């Protein structure tokens, strides 16, 4: 890959010698590589394009299996149909509320925990870290969790069942911890000398200087909260409390079930356009923000890998 050699000695001579031999093979490889990567990218994107095409196609063409890249029988009826369902908007609003509330709770718990764990002179640091780490590899499992939330804490049909059980992601915790560990100690020491308490240092020095990592973690939590469905599916019975993911899940399940029960092939796609529009509207916020926030996600993962 690096063909420009900086030292004009034996290396360069040698490289030029070997280059002669390799040129053809390398050139062929380059072309194959680019073609393959293009193919992979196209395959990755295709389902989204297909979704978009189906959203604006008429049912007739979808059922005939004629919709792939561009809408056939273009219309906005399906879109109008979905957005005129008040339940869709109720559920969409719920998703927004759960995402905001869940993210705030998660961030509060994760940030304070990570900061305390990052202080090297904290006694018991190893144990407090281990307590969190262990939950990564062993969990209570579905049934005990369900009994806890539903029977012990009586959180069925409450927003707390959605936002509390998964509040701390150990992965995010470790990322933040390693970020705070690399925080320049001089700043905090100087602040402490000025008479600032731990609270002062944390809220007025550390937080303002950690905006990048805070933004990244907020995005991680917000996206996973936005996308989550199982907690709601498990603990909520009231339709008007569902997040939009459960609304969508029920839509898909209804379509699949009707297909199975009738055993008729052509009913599978009933509502395919409705499903498509609903999916489209659900991913829309993420796809819109995605180009701008992608680098934060990548940096967040990198940060986590520093520590291994």
């Amino acid at each position: 890959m690096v063909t420009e050699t900086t030292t004009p000695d034996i290396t360069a001579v040698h490289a030029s010698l070997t280059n002669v031999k390799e040129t053809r093979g390398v050139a062929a490889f380059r072309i194959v590589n680019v073609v393959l990567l293009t193919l992979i990218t196209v395959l990755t994107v295709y389902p989204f394009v297909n979704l978009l095409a189906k959203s604006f196609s008429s049912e007739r063409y979808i059922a005939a299996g004629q919709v792939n890249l561009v809408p056939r029988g273009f219309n906005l009826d399906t879109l109008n149909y979905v957005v005129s369902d008040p339940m869709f908007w109720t559920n969409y609003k719920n998703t927004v509320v759960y995402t905001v509330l869940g993210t705030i709770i998660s961030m509060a718990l994760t940030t304070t925990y990570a900061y305390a764990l990052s202080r090297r002179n904290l006694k018991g640091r190893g144990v407090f870290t281990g307590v969190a780490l262990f939950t990564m590899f062993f969990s209570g499992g579905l049934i005990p969790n369900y009994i806890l939330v539903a029977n012990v804490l009586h959180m069925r049909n409450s927003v707390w069942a959605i936002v509390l059980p998964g509040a701390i992601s150990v992965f995010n915790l470790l990322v933040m911890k390693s970020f705070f560990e690399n925080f320049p100690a001089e700043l905090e020491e100087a602040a402490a000398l000025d008479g600032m308490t731990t609270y002062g240092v944390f809220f007025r020095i550390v937080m303002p200087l950690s905006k990048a990592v805070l933004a990244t973690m907020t995005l991680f939590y917000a996206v996973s909260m936005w996308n989550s469905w199982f907690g709601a599916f498990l603990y909520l019975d009231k339709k008007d409390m569902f997040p939009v993911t459960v609304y969508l899940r029920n839509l898909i399940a209804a379509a699949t079930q009707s297909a199975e029960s009738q055993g008729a092939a052509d009913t599978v796609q009933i509502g395919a356009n409705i499903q498509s529009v609903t999916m489209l509207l659900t991913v829309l916020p993420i796809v819109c923000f995605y180009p701008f926030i992608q680098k934060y996600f990548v940096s967040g993962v990198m940060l986590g890998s520093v520590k291994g």
Partner: protein
Amino acid sequence: MSLQEPVSVTSGPDVPDVPLAPAGVPGGAGLGGPPGGAPPRTSREQRLRMQGKTSWRVALRRDWRLYSFLVLPLVFLLVFKYVPMLGNVIAFRKFRPGGNPFGDEWVGFHYFEQFIHNQQFWTVFWNTVILGGLSLVIVFPLPIVLALMLNELRSRRFKKLVQTLTYLPHFMSIVIVAGIVLQLTSLDGSVNQVITAVGGDAIPFMQQPGWFRSIYISSEAWQTVGWGTILYLAALTTIDQQLYEAAKIDGANRWKQTWHVTLPGIRPTMMVLLILNIGSFMAVGFEKVLLLQNPLIYSTADVISTYLYRVGIQSAQFSYAAAIGLFESIIGLVLVLSANFASRRMVGASLW
């Protein structure tokens, strides 16, 4: 013991802190002073100070604000992580809805025997092993290959574009992924469009058990391959370019350079990710399988987690399902511990 020089505060406490800590975990046990056996010459407090450590009493007084940060997260972990772990006792005790959440009467291994003698359990067990094994063998190496391919690209722009677009599926809700998969594989979906275009007959994929594994693995690859490259790409940038120069001088062609320089360079990353993957082996994409499966294809598409969801939550056989869940968690824990151990012994890379 007789060392008098002060140990530096920054380097000292981290490691030697651990063995002492269990003596007085979060509670106040450590506050009461040394639990007997104080050496004759110095008190525990003095001894600790000499080693650069502090007692709990001093630590709490000095850092109480810092400890206050720990309170809520620890309560959270206790309630939502550790209580459910204890809740697993219902696997050994008969649970009645509305009764004691930890079960009413001790039944020993009754529920374990019940599922071990259940034919259906073994079907879902093997489905899980096969699906997990296929993910590990097929899906796990793909990001490595893709990262190597991306690494060979000259155009930064094209690389960026491929990355941006292949990361995208990672951010989709599993509900959306399942919805997309069901649409693509339906009779009038894109896959069947291709099949009929080349003269084949449309296949009702989601009604034939034989197709489920291929579909699941493909969707897994689609969703995770791009995002999975990030850590490998990061590891690739840390490889010393001089190693490539040296390999060239030794007459290594590009394949040999990849094999002898690049792959060893990213091996620690590979091992860590492999261990993590092995740890989640038994949990194979529970949510996705649950969304994709239907009764017609249970013979291949039903896995341990979805089975225990059905018998546990839907049929309310809590103790029976908890026994299966505990079995699954323990296998997962054993797998991750042994993978970590083996990797540390053989490759020198490990999680901890």
